[in-house]
């Protein structure tokens, strides 16, 4: 990654080693592991103080419901980030998958969902193959595919909104089990599955190894390229799933449905405490990060802060967290 380039100028920040800034590193290190929880508690406390509505069951369910889609996408992004890569195309895959699902509804409920997921597979495969074969920068490549898929989505919809026609389709987005939306349960189940995969399967182990040291992983016989391509595919599939859920919830879809979700998913992962440099992290941490985002959004709505302000807050928090991470990581 670009980290490698920095090592060539190692002495660049000797002042970080000793002197008055040294304590900052200590604070950073302590904070990083528990960032999400610190943020959750802080914001949660603030919110419950400033608003009566915050701690009601209905509101809490609202929070969970709102983050289900971004949560699913963030899980996919987590896998890639652990392995040392990124996927900036998830936003357009989300929209595109929704469109495919609606457009192929006449083939039946199951087929249209499968086709939408297939769309994710294809985009993920393209991403993965280009990044691994050409050893190209994953940010830029996926930004390119993002643009391309978006164009396809625009072509398919002619910039219009498509409406879902099968009532059964809406279960994913609008159904509930008891008080809890199906979408939320789906998210939590996927998070649990991912956690198990990461901790207890060979595949998960490979992801951490590759994220930490690609060359050493290769020399241990790990099929690095194959693992990376499959991870890109999984990430896109999860983005597609998110798109299906969102379409199902709104009963409709547009080409730019996923606007901003690429950055949001990365923020969620980072907020959870996973390092952008790869090699560490977990599904649980990402769930925490997604929760923080949800609480943040909810709080700003309850307090009447305009929607646009969220961008600023999220961006600032992102920079703060990444900054802490960088201070700790880079010598």
């Amino acid at each position, binding site marked *: *990654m*670009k*980290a490698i*380039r*920095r090592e*060539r*100028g190692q*002495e*660049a*920040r000797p002042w*970080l080693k000793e002197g008055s800034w040294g304590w900052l590193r200590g604070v950073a290190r302590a904070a990083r592991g528990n960032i999400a929880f610190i943020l959750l508690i802080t914001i949660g406390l603030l919110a419950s103080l400033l608003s009566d509505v915050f701690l009601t069951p209905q509101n809490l369910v609202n929070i969970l419901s709102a983050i289900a889609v971004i949560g699913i996408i963030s899980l996919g992004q987590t896998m890639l980030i652990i392995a040392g890569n990124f996927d900036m195309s998830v936003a357009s895959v989300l929209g595109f998958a929704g469109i495919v699902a609606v457009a192929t509804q006449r083939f039946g409920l199951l087929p249209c969902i499968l086709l939408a997921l297939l769309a994710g597979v294809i985009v993920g495969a393209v991403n993965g193959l*280009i990044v691994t074969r*050409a*050893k*190209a*920068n994953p*940010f*830029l*490549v996926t*930004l*390119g*595919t*993002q*643009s*391309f898929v*978006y*164009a*396809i989505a*625009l*072509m398919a919809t002619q910039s219009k909104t498509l409406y879902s026609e099968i009532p059964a389709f809406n279960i994913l987005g609008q159904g509930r089990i008891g008080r809890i939306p199906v979408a939320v349960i789906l998210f939590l189940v996927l998070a649990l599955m991912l956690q198990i995969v990461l901790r207890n399967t060979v595949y998960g182990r490979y992801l951490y190894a590759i994220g930490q040291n690609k060359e050493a992983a290769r020399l241990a016989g790990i099929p690095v390229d194959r693992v990376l391509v499959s991870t890109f595919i999984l990430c896109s599939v999860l983005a597609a799933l998110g798109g299906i859920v969102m379409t199902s919830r709104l009963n409709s879809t547009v080409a730019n449905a996923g606007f901003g979700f690429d*950055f949001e998913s*990365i923020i969620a992962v980072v907020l959870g405490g996973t390092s*952008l440099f790869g090699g560490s992290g977990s599904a649980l941490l990402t769930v925490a990060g997604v929760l923080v985002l949800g609480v943040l959004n909810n709080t700003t709505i309850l307090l009447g802060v*305009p929607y*646009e*302000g*969220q*961008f*600023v*807050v*999220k*961006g*600032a928090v*992102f*920079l703060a967290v*990444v*900054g802490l991470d*960088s*201070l700790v*990581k*880079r010598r």
Partner: protein
Amino acid sequence: MDRLLGFLARRAVLSILLVLFAVFTVLQRSIFLSEQNVANVARQVSFNGIIALGETVVLISGGIDISVGAVLSMAAALTMKLQPFGVGVAVGAALLFGLAVGVINGLLVTKIGIPPFVATLGSMTVVQGLMLTYTQQQPIPGHVEWFTVFGAGSLGPVPMPTLILAAVAVFCYWWLNQTRSGRNIYAVGGNPEAARLAGIDLDLYWFLPYVFSGVCAALSGVLLASLLNTSTIHIGLDTPLAVLAASIMGGASLLGGRGSVGGTLLGVLALGMLSNGMDLLGVFTYYQIAIRAVILVAVVVIDSFYTNRIQTRARRQAHAA
């Protein structure tokens, strides 16, 4: 002649696009080469061209700046909204904003050590948020009629933005080729270790390009606002991709140490011609977006292959030693 051929050979994609130029000329000669159209293209490419020059300097130093699009739109918004206080104030504020974002980007990268892509991704989001808040998502119309001369006017046959692009290009060329600081930027991007051992201040030359890039983006925003006499929230979304593609096609590399004013201008021109040609041929916008995306990916992939080959060759030679 030899040097020109070598220059082109190293930029395969650029050559391909120049071939496209030939194709368009043949297909739509009368319109394509008309004075009106040429002036149009010149004007259109100038906006991205100015930003691309800024981006090129950042790339040469080994970094990357994707916040340029957001800065562009915020600068445009500032220019329009502050007009009541005087055009000079408005433009000044916009440029100052670009400078400030550049400084922040530079500090994030050098003092905190955040990788450039991540840092500018973050600042892009913040600036986008600021822009949306500031404009309340509404377009802002302008009031001062004469202000549009910068964006929409021409000096003889040459559009004003193009003149400004030329000025920026001349400055950039002088800076990068004739001053110590410019050559130092090539050094810190091409081989930071060598630069360090030569006593060059790495942080400074990693920092300066971001400031320049921020100002360029703001300048372009001012000009664009002047052209449209309004600012909307849709401008600048495509910008980072376009300027990156243009710079890399023109010879810059994501790894740093390479890039040139001439190459970037050619890259911008090529992309501009492509868009213009496609417009004239009636190619639908959506297809254009797709084609541009493919070009970006192709450019990045080719750059990757090229730099990987150099690195492997260098490693093999080092091993033999």
